[in-house]
């Protein structure tokens, strides 16, 4: 159901402060607070360790922070600059693995399977990543966590603080144990966290200990996701869809762009168009690859990930940050007296690139999910009806068990039972044997044509199928049937059955003859039975090993 990928998380704590100090070296060693405006409030977005020692915390009002820590320097948040500076770190990590996924400036993840083998284990990999990041000059306090799943890896990176080396590796399979003592507030949903705390569930361990059905019944689908996170499973996006291949948006920049505003303006149109086309197909994007080509033919690519579906604003912001990072790395021509640009250039001077202006920008959706929750119905009712149905069905799943509520997926097969797969409600509806494979329709010899029976018995019900002389109908070793059936008795039929009025068949099935454990040789009959008080009843009967069964009734 869920797979966990062994993931490494590289986290630079207090990244806004680190970036600000890099730009303005005078800030080193003094308490620094990066502030942002949320509505009318002026709050602390990030505080340096000196300020935190004075009691300044994240989300505190600026005035209170100044009162607690006299002499604190307040600077405005500049997400674009933070992202640009983090590009240096991302490039450094890219020398270790190509699959870096940026989560936000200051934190990125990558799967460790390949690199860990190359560098000789998780510890060696983590130490190497740390040294690589330290070489960029941003290494102050960088932490690396490695664990099964992204959520556990992020917490491992936070845990790394305790150890001196700044590395924490959770052994494979130990993620669930590692998560047990963490408080539920590490889950990113305030409403649910406050509810869990009021119910006395304060640690992830206590959440993980709850039975699956109970969590689903009480907290709904959100709760189920949290339950899986707490148990060390990585649910990821609920249902991943393979991105349609033609949904790549690109534009050529002519003349080549050397200034970020030119490139970003073109990219904004791309972002809007991409999301619009995805929305037409009912899809939303959670991970996107930003690609660019330079005038010297170099190709640049970087993956950005978002916890929720990307909005046009969020996507174009990320694209702008990324293009900004690349262009700033191209050793720009610095106007005299432009101190900030000069310092940017200093920052980026560490990165050796031979690239120049950008000639092409391309956006590739990397991970797309069905866009529920973003599409409104014609009268605003569609989403409400879906939520209502999901809640009610989750409640019934809580009452009767997870797989008591199912949806049917039609798939390939010979008998009516094989042609349908029942999937528990909420799981991806994927057939085991698709009806079409690469555009071709696999043949199922011996399958009955429509109409299809409306009652299908799994397992089939025992029956008596007799020929005109009152002897059971049998199958020969070659799959041939003897005399035609004349009587059928089964409790699935009204009045217990009756005379066979007409019979079509037999269809011999020689199933899995190569496998002694599951092989079966049977014949199928489509029969119309005349019953005493309900007229003609049509059904499908099977004969196997000398015993007859009723597989389905056309009700």
């Amino acid at each position: 159901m869920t797979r966990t990928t062994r993931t490494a998380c590289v986290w630079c704590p207090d990244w806004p402060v680190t970036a600000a100090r890099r730009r303005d070296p005078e800030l080193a060693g003094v308490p620094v607070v990066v502030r942002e405006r949320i509505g009318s409030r002026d709050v602390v977005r990030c505080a340096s360790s000196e300020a935190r020692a004075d009691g300044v915390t994240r989300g505190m009002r600026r005035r209170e922070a100044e009162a607690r820590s006299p002499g604190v320097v307040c600077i405005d948040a500049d997400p674009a600059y933070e992202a640009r500076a983090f590009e240096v770190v991302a490039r450094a990590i890219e020398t270790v693995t190509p699959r870096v996924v940026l989560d936000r400036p200051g934190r990125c993840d990558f799967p460790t399977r390949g690199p860990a083998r190359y560098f000789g284990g998780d510890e060696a990999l983590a130490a190497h990543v740390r040294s690589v990041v330290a070489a960029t000059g941003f290494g102050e306090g960088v932490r690396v966590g490695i664990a099964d799943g992204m959520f556990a890896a992020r917490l491992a990176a936070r845990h790394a603080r305790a150890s001196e080396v700044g590395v924490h590796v959770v052994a494979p399979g130990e993620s669930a144990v590692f998560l047990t003592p963490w408080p539920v507030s590490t889950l990113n949903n305030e409403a649910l966290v406050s509810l869990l705390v009021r119910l006395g569930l304060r640690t992830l361990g206590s959440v993980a200990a709850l039975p699956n059905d109970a969590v689903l019944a009480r907290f709904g689908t959100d709760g189920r996701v949290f339950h899986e996170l707490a148990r060390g499973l990585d649910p990821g996006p609920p249902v991943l869809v393979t991105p349609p291949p033609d949904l790549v948006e690109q534009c050529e920049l002519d003349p080549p762009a050397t200034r970020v505003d030119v490139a970003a303006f073109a990219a904004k149109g791309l972002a809007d168009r991409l999301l619009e086309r995805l929305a037409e197909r009912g899809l939303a994007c959670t991970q996107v690859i930003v690609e660019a080509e330079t005038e010297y033919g170099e190709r640049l690519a970087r993956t950005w990930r978002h916890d929720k579906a990307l909005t046009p604003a969020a996507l174009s912001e990320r694209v702008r940050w990324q293009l900004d990072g690349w262009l700033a790395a191209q050793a720009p021509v610095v106007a005299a007296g432009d101190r900030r640009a000069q310092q940017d250039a200093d920052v980026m001077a560490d990165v050796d690139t031979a690239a120049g202006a950008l000639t092409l920008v391309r956006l590739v959706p990397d991970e797309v999910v069905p866009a529920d929750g973003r599409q409104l119905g014609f009268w605003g009712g569609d989403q409400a009806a879906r939520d209502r149905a999901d809640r009610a069905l989750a409640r019934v799943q809580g009452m009767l068990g997870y797989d008591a509520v199912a949806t049917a997926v039609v798939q390939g097969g010979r008998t009516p039972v094989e042609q349908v797969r029942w999937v528990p409600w909420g799981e991806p509806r994927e057939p085991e044997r698709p009806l079409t494979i690469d555009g071709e329709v696999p043949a199922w010899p011996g399958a009955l044509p429509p109409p299809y029976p409306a009652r299908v018995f799994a397992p089939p019900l025992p029956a008596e199928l007799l020929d005109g002389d009152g002897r059971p109908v049998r199958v020969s070793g070659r799959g041939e049937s003897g005399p035609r059936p004349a009587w059928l008795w089964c409790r699935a039929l009204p009045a217990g059955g009756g005379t066979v009025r007409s019979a079509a068949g037999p269809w011999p099935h020689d199933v899995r003859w190569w496998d002694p454990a599951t092989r079966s040789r049977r014949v199928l009959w489509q029969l119309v039975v005349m019953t005493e008080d309900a007229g003609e009843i049509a059904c499908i009967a099977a004969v196997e090993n000398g015993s007859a069964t009723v597989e389905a009734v056309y009700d």
Partner: protein
Amino acid sequence: MARAEIPDGLPLSAIAARVQPFVAARERLLPVALPLGNHLPNGGVQRGTTVVVDGRRGVGVTTTTLMLAAAATTTGEWAAIVDPDGTVGARAAADAGVELERCAVVRRVPRDRWSAVVAALLDGAALVAATVPDRLRPGDARRLIAKARERSSVLVAVGPWPVEAALRLHVEPSAWERASSGLLTRRDIVVHVEGRGVRAPMRLAHAV
């Protein structure tokens, strides 16, 4: 309503009563596909009502029920089927017009929790088709009728329904048509419709 039609001096509550949205009975309808829809009052089933489908096993009760369930899923809403034996055939449902993606099937329902399950489903789905257990208490049945009315959902009760219902479809035995090979091709299901809005109890034939 135009402003000119409200006389001056009316109390606010009276004006509110006159301008509240007006919903015609026809708009609260789940249209049923032809040919069955042709024989139902207004061509469909009214939201908030209870419909009973009964008949002997094998004569077409399940197919008729699935045609009603298709009425909910084709309007983009959700349907639920309560099927304690777990025997409903999904391919037949798809052929009857049910969107399988929006149709939940509840299997393995213990007898003593049947009413609770159906009531919970009426909260969420526009149509709930439930196979009625034997000897259902009339009190429980009336509570479910009230629940369906309150939630504006359709309850399709399949089997021996102990109390009254807005519409009753009684399926009668019918004959199959066969190809020369003996393979089944089609049949005309014979349904006897009676209830509110039906002028006279009628028999109708429709094809599978």
